[in-house]
């Protein structure tokens, strides 16, 4: 099952490699991983998307908690949550028809065109993983030059929060 694990860890050098090393050493799957400092600069917030049976997810959370740098974690998928991913896509956009078609798609998906040249558009798209995937499919015949995805960031709904 797909799970989103969100953790707060000490913003120290090496903390990221401890987490990444744990996943590779124990053979856990990592679908995406994002990390950045929080409003408290001594803490980083990390979102990991992983897959595994219940027992594997239990081990993953226990092993993460065991890392000395990890302050706290929650499995966002255990409750109501919101997830978002940012994607930047550069596509070939020649001629009016093609440029119109891309613009229409971007509007439908509520994305934005953030950079324009005479032969390319760079698009910005935000949404959950499914929406971002769907947008790539929808581009269809449009030639993609490159895709950059941020990986999932997640947050609990309502009062549910991961705080020290």
């Amino acid at each position, binding site marked *: 099952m797909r799970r989103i694990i969100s953790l707060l860890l000490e913003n120290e*050098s090496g903390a990221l490699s401890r987490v990444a090393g744990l996943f590779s050493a124990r053979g856990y799957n990592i679908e995406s991983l994002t990390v950045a400092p929080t409003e408290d600069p001594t803490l980083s917030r990390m979102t990991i998307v992983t897959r595994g049976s219940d027992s594997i997810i239990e081990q993953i959370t226990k092993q993460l908690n065991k890392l000395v740098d990890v302050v706290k974690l929650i499995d966002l998928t255990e409750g109501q949550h919101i997830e978002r991913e940012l994607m930047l896509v550069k596509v070939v956009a020649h001629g009016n028809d093609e440029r119109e078609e891309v613009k229409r798609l971007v509007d439908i998906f509520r994305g934005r065109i953030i950079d324009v040249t005479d032969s390319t558009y760079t698009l910005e798209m935000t949404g959950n993983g499914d929406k971002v995937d769907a947008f790539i499919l929808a581009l269809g015949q449009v030639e993609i030059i490159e895709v950059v995805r941020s990986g999932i960031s997640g947050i609990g709904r309502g009062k549910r929060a991961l705080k020290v």
Partner: protein
Amino acid sequence: MQLTGADIVVRCLQDEGIEYIFGYPGGAALHIYDALYKQDKVKHILVRHEQGATHMADGYARATGKAGVVLVTSGPGVTNTVTGIATAYMDSVPMVVLTAQVPSHLIGDDAFQEVDTVGITRPCVKHNFLVGDVNKLAETMKKAFYIAESGRPGPVVVDIPKDVTAKVAEYHYPEVVDMRSYQPRTRGHIKQISRGLDLLVQAKRPVVYTGGGVVLGDGSAPLRKVVSKLGFPSTSTLMGLGAIPHDDPNFLGMLGMHGTYEANMAMHQCDVMFAIGARFDDRVTGELSKFAPDARIIQIDIDPSSIGKNVPVEVPIVGDCGQVLEQMLEQLDARLGEIDRTVVGEWWAQVDKWRAVKSLDYQPSKDKIVPQLVVERLMQITDGEAFVSSDVGQHQMWAAQYYGFSKPRRWINSGGLGTMGFGLPAAMGIQLAYPDDTVICISGDASIQMCLQELSTCLQYELPVKIINLNNQYMGMVRQWQEFFYDRRYSHSYMDALPDFVKLSESYGHVGIRVEDPADLDEALNRAFSMKDRLVFVDVITDPTVNVYPMIAAGKGHNEMHLQPDQEEHQERELA
């Protein structure tokens, strides 16, 4: 008080009450070595190879419960410690390894003797630090000891660049540390303990299965009380031996791949299993799908990730084994009446039938020395009171099977990582901690050669360790597996061209004794142990064909043990 980083390191060790550190100097460590030279509170043991330093610190830590301390230089000094750090990590041994690093401005430059120490040790430490600021050095040292010794113990590496050891800072050694990200829980949840007792008192076929966590958590005394009050069959892993005395009537001996028949059969057929500080290692469980099919399991462990990792657990109890068992004792008397002694008595009758098989009986010999006999004689000569370290292989299993341990922290071996070369340096660390006690290193002709250079250290510090080398000219356990599973193709397991161990010991300034005839064994051992102040290397030439029994082969369950060949024939006749 203003001190240099090097002086701060040494002052921290003094303030931590460290008696010995084990190390080897080198360029990046020279400031620290200079600071050591100027004082005599912390005694430095100069090893011959950094791996030896880690195993000595490890042996010291296992015997005393206090963190062992290692000091090495950068680069190869560090890489040589990795085996020892991983050994300590796998067996949860508290250790602080101070590694010197090239100066900060050279880090990442491929400088002389530079290695990414925190990177290379990360997967085999509990935690590690790179100290970038001399003002944080003392605090980091305190954290290192706190992390190493608290919770589930383990090795901690502190990497200190040379320039940090030269810079000056105000010295203050914190008395306590409070880390928001690290707060191990030691007391068990009272409701979980009651739930565990609910299961225990209803058990019809109970078994108590204890491990190294009982030794590490100083839980031997409450464990003995709990087991004696419950009156349940009890077994121990390799790492837990000594927590319950070997001759306790409730004790069935060691379990697992080379455990006793009664211990493994009791595990297989139990309905309630009480696991205490044991982690269901593959050498214990055998094939997981066949493991204890009817068991409802209660598990105490200080590390939540050890609970339910390999086997589903019905009642998890997170906490220090010693503390949880003490908490359990507070409730136990009131619950003992609920145990159906008749039903448990029937279970005991079954267990005693398995016991009657006497799975540790072995074939004596008049011509050749049988290794099991050597261990039995060692136990008799030392009244079972010695500290025993071992290396890894057949001799390790025989030591575990035939030296009956009555106290915790007396049996010291590399169980998790299985590190050959561990035995001698570990014995040295133990001997330093307990200078008046008898320390035996039971080894083999292959293992002993892996850290043999430390014989020189033994001379320098007058460590009268007794090395019993069970010399069968093979890597015995490899040979055994090749005999059983590779159609006797003994690929590279024969130790051709062994040194003359007697002369070798003598060249290091020690006493060497060789014994080949079974008739001479007792005299040789008595002579060795009569030399209280000398290291004696007893090279015992043993029968190379002897195998370790009983044995559970890979992929088999606890009920599919191989007994000694003659016992198997006997059993087959009985069944027929």
